């Protein structure tokens, strides 16, 4: 197996995640897309860890997973708050900062 196959898979997943973050209207779906991106990063970390024979990547992958869990918790709380205030989970209604 060459390193690049993992890396390119991760890149593709990451870009799909980007698309999701950009194009999804529903807050929950945006969060899911963020999870996609984080997963892509994890794949990268593990691949490099194997390639470099160092456990640092694995450790950081674990941290990323932990933080992703925390992020989903807080993120969903925010979406919930938005839903409660605007009666819709749609992010494009959140435009109070409009100039």
């Amino acid at each position, binding site marked *: *197996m*060459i*390193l*690049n*196959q*993992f890396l*390119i*898979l991760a*890149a*593709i*997943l*990451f*870009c*799909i*995640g*980007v*698309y999701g973050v*950009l*194009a*999804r209207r*529903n*807050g*929950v*779906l945006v969060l*899911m*897309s963020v*999870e996609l991106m984080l*997963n892509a990063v*994890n794949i990268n970390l*593990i*691949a490099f*860890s*194997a*390639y470099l024979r160092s*456990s*640092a*990547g*694995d*450790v950081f992958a*674990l*941290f990323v*997973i*932990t*933080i*992703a*869990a*925390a*992020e*989903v*918790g*807080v993120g*969903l*709380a*925010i*979406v*919930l*708050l938005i*839903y*409660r205030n605007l009666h819709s989970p749609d992010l*494009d209604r959140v435009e109070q900062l409009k100039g």
Partner: protein
Amino acid sequence: MIIQNIFFWVLALAMVGAAIGVVRSQNVVHAALYLVVVMAGAAAQFILLGAEFVAWVQVIIYIGAVIILFLFGIMLTRAPMRGETSLDNDQRFPAAIVSLFLAGVLGTLLVQAFGKKEVVISGAKGEQLLHVGKAATLADSIFTTYVVPFEIVSLLLLAALVGAVVMARRD
């Protein structure tokens, strides 16, 4: 080697497909289920790379916890199940362009940078060469070199917990 490669490509295709499903599906619950596929695929990839411990953590936390959270979120926000209103916003097209462009750039760079470098996981006889992903090795690392970040992450989790509760609470 070949078997592993085959596994990889199958998994990769499934993951990409499911990922596209996550971002294109017009049903929120379906999107969540697609996400399960991606995550499980990722866990399988980890095993391919010899990181068993991370793979199981991935399964437990992502598939076990995060997805449940998402489902709760979907339920609580009463997300539309079928295409009553579009789940996408009006910048789909530019978003696609940007992400494709990004993918192109990343891909080119990766190919340029790493070319055909090999990841060696098992020897000629199939014996495991790599030990970095083993739980014992990982534990050593976490509780020696990375003990401070580890503690900080725990604190962060606590903070996130409190924060989520504070925000979601009705008052």
